């Protein structure tokens, strides 16, 4: 249990830093989605199924979709740079 939790927390923190430093915006949004996903896993491990479902659906899914659409509209949707 502790190992799973530690790995998930590490992944979460690493992608949180990635959100701030990755030069590519699409990658940053994807990293934010990974943060939410890791958070959802943590919530599930912490026996909070309702919150885990919500975080996965809203944080990792819907909000990432919203941000990605915004990115496209802002003209920052470039795969390579």
């Amino acid at each position: 249990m502790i190992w799973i939790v530690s790995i998930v927390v590490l992944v979460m923190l690493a992608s949180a830093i990635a959100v701030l430093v990755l030069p590519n915006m699409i990658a940053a949004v994807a990293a934010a989605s990974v943060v939410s996903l890791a958070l959802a896993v943590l919530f599930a491990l912490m026996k909070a199924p309702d919150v885990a479902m919500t975080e996965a659906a809203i944080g990792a899914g819907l909000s990432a979709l919203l941000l990605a659409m915004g990115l496209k509209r802002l003209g920052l949707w470039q795969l390579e740079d």
Partner: protein
Amino acid sequence: MPAIEVVLYSGAIGLSIIGLTGLLLLNNVFRMLLALVILESGVNLLLILSGFRLAGVAPVILPEQLSNLSAIVMNDPVPQALVLTAIVIGVGVQALGLAMILRIKAQYGTLNMLKIREQLEFDLAVQSGVATPVSAHSPVSLASGRERQLSNHKDEQ
């Protein structure tokens, strides 16, 4: 103190600090919005932790538990409800922020917070008549304005 809780708490606090640092240091408004999302996630995790018990089970009563309800240790349902609320509030704020960014980008042509602020101060001064607008109809100023907007845009890429 159990090691697992230490890991979780450090995750929550780390996430909050990363989000806050991002908000303070970054200039790109879109990334600031992302940093805000991270900050919110960190605080949500902290809130859930306040109702976490190592031996606890999810606060959902299963049919087979009905006979001995009092024997089961459950996690605190209240922080879970609060975090549900907070997550939904967060997505609302995020959407509103995104909409504003789209509008700002459409008309100011930049995503840089410093430039937006500069532009805003200038607009306010012009609106109130304190600053004299750089003569509105002179072609030179228009061209330079356009150039600046374009160069801003290149900076962000």
